[in-house]
């Protein structure tokens, strides 16, 4: 299940932010996205995940193979840890949440409502959700935010296991996860404003320059 991005241009609020992106993600491989804050890493991940249409270029992959995890974990405070995980398991049609619980050391918190978890625990539960989706391609936006060192290590192990099992991961992060992953710096791909053609397809703004 490879993910290939060819000549991709993405925009935020109608203005192109990155263009000419080319990379691919082989099964078992991981790619870490680097670049200054606000350069458009989140927009890129959302476009690859299919949440946002690209301005130009293509993202070739089977949409059913993508699991996306953003800053906010999508957890319901009222539900307990197991209810949250069971919910996502049912949605993605996978069985059993034990692997996810074990993978992120959440067995002890099974019956605690998500609202009573610490930020780190909530983050781990959000990441545990990835295991439950059973999707090969993980797209992660700053996954290690509010995680302590031990949890970061736990997350890295989970990713390694996922890669070993033939999965792949596209991660935007500043922290060195100790993974054998290529680094892809998006800095040089910033959309250059000068070369604005008078082309009238593409995003709204482009049509007016």
């Amino acid at each position, binding site marked *: 299940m490879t993910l290939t991005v060819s000549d991709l241009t993405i925009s935020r609020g109608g203005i192109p932010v990155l263009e000419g992106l080319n990379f691919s993600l082989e099964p078992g491989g991981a790619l870490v996205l680097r670049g200054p804050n606000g350069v458009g890493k989140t927009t890129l991940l959302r476009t690859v995940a299919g949440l946002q249409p690209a301005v130009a270029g293509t993202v070739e992959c089977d949409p059913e193979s993508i699991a996306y*995890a953003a800053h*906010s974990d999508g957890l319901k405070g009222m539900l307990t840890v197991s209810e949250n995980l069971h919910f996502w398991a049912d949605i993605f049609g996978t069985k059993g949440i034990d692997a996810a619980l074990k993978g992120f050391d959440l067995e002890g918190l099974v019956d605690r409502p998500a609202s009573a978890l610490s930020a780190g625990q909530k983050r781990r539960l959000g990441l545990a959700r990835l295991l439950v989706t059973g999707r090969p391609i993980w797209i992660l936006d700053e996954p290690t935010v509010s995680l302590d060192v031990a949890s970061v290590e736990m997350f890295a192990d989970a990713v390694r296991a996922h890669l070993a099992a033939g999965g792949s991961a596209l991660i935007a992060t500043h922290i060195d996860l100790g993974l054998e992953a290529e680094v892809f710096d998006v800095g040089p791909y910033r959309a250059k404003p000068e070369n604005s053609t008078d082309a009238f397809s593409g995003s709204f703004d482009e049509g007016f320059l």
Partner: protein
Amino acid sequence: MIALLVRDMKLAMRAGGGFGLGLAFFLIVTVLVPFGVGPESGLLSKIAPGILWLGALLACLLSLDRIFALDWEDGSLDLLATSPLPMEGVVTIKALAHWLTTGLPLCLAAPLFGLLLSLPDTGYVWLVLSLVIGTPALSVVGTFGAALTVGLKRGGLLLSLLVLPLYVPTLIFGAEVARRGALGMDAMTPLLMLGGITAGTIALLPFASALVLRVNLR
């Protein structure tokens, strides 16, 4: 899909606010009417069907912005968008959950409130029938409005402005069924129209709501 419905119902139950809010509002509206219009039961019974329908409609309207707001804030909407569930399915389930937590209780409570407004005896059956058939349309149209305004800062007011004109056909036919029922007249034609509108909205509107939700998720 069922998992989403079960979760939403569980959330509504646990949050507690889900059921009570709409009902309490409906009761308050019904109780206030005689204060405004006067206690004279002859007048009350004449306007009872309309008032009960209006109260149910406004109670539905009240709880619309909560349909997507919670999932929008904690990021669940993004995750649902990348899940195997089609957005049309998500939207329909959300509308159904709204109806079960707000619409249905209104239908069950309406006869009780009808007593307060001295609704004629023949009116009860038709009132409940019209509400049961009409309120699903209110939930589906309301979900469309909620999807339109989900990302906006003060979307609540705008939501009402957008949704109320869309409620006009359902309100007219629904209140007409209740009114004719109360007078003992034959209410079949407006009932069929009401059912037609509800069936039409349930069948077609989720596609528009899903499209709008995807646009808002960009």
